[in-house]
């Protein structure tokens, strides 16, 4: 009985140990940054499916939406929500094109959207270690390298208190993004079925 208990405790400890975040050392940070930057540089296109969870503390369950994302270097980006509604937003040439279930509109890029765009593109290709914009800290778990970014810019701070990026250790690409608001409500986006450098037709970015 005692042995069983001991095994159970040890097992639990090992789980906690594995999932626990540890701070990266300086050398780990530098090799991680290099790996991500070289992956980002060689990423010409990226297509991935995503599921987005909007967490609001007062709700019974998170609001779940899902779709597909297309990115083409240097800066064309399309988010296409497919469930439970159809909505597509394209960031291209400093403009934002929206197709809301057939209703089309566009917005000139302003300061706020520009920052949001950079953040989104950066979070997709991992190229966002900008110390001028963020205070960045680095952590690791068994499966992930994690960066936590605190915005320095007052405009961005109003929207996001902290941004967390989870990088797959195997591929050095982002597999999860978490944007935390000052109220601690958050948006979590989980990427799956990533396809890197496959051909994407330019018409994808014509909303």
């Amino acid at each position: 009985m005692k042995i069983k208990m001991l095994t159970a405790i040890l097992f639990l400890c090992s789980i906690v140990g594995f999932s626990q975040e540890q701070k990266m050392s300086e050398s780990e940070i530098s090799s991680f940054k290099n790996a991500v930057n070289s992956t980002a540089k060689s990423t010409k296109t990226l297509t991935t499916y995503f599921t987005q969870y909007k967490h609001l503390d007062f709700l019974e369950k998170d609001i779940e939406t899902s779709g597909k994302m297309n990115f083409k270097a240097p800066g064309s980006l399309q988010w296409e929500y497919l469930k439970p509604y159809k909505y597509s937003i394209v960031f291209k040439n400093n403009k934002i094109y929206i197709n809301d279930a057939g209703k089309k509109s566009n917005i000139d890029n302003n300061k706020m959207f520009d920052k949001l765009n950079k953040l989104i593109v950066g979070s997709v290709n991992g190229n966002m270690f900008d110390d001028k914009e963020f205070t960045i800290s680095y952590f690791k778990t068994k499966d992930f390298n994690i960066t936590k970014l605190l915005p320095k810019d007052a405009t961005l701070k109003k929207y996001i208190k902290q941004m967390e990026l989870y990088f797959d250790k195997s591929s050095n690409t982002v597999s999860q993004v978490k944007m935390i608001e000052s109220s601690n409500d958050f948006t979590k986006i989980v990427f799956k079925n990533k396809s890197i450098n496959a051909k994407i037709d330019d018409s994808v970015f014509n909303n």
Partner: protein
Amino acid sequence: MQKSTIPFLITSFFLLVLLNSCAVKTVKDFDKTAVSSEIFKTPYFSDKSIDYVYKSSISVYGRDFGGIFIAKKINDTTHRIVFTTEFGNKLFDFEISGNEFKVNFILEELDRKIIVNMLKRDFMLLLKKEFVVEEQFENDNFTILKSLENNRINFLFVSKKSLKLEKLVHSTKSKEKISIEYLSENNTLADKIIIDHKNIKLRIELNYLKN
């Protein structure tokens, strides 16, 4: 004496015609009936266990915006209302309890008195739990309940066939200001809601998201 009475009568007559023509037309061709129940309780947004999540589109003076509208009854008297972009960024977060209105968060760009007041009035109307019925009207399809609210009037259109609340018209004594249309399959949850402003070009459409 007689000389002064005639102009007075003429003025009164024209004033009467003028006032009559200005009276709100909402229940113009309806027959007045006895009030059947003094209180009307709205069925929508009343279940504490439901997250009311809607995909919404807002059209204001020809410009279109989208987002997610979330309403939740957090206790017996209070509703929480949050509006986010499709990406999940919060644009505003309000709490409404009867006539009390609290702003938990609003984006600086939206934080204008005229916008906040308009949102406040629309959502208070949308979430109003019960109406005191002053008068009642009907035609072949609807029973219309008239309820007073300060200097304004609310007309509630209840379908005779389905007994569902299908429309709410908010008006002054002479003009309709806002109409809210509800499409509901089961009479407890509104699947589609259209809030239409009559004096400004503003229309809000909400479509329930089955999560």
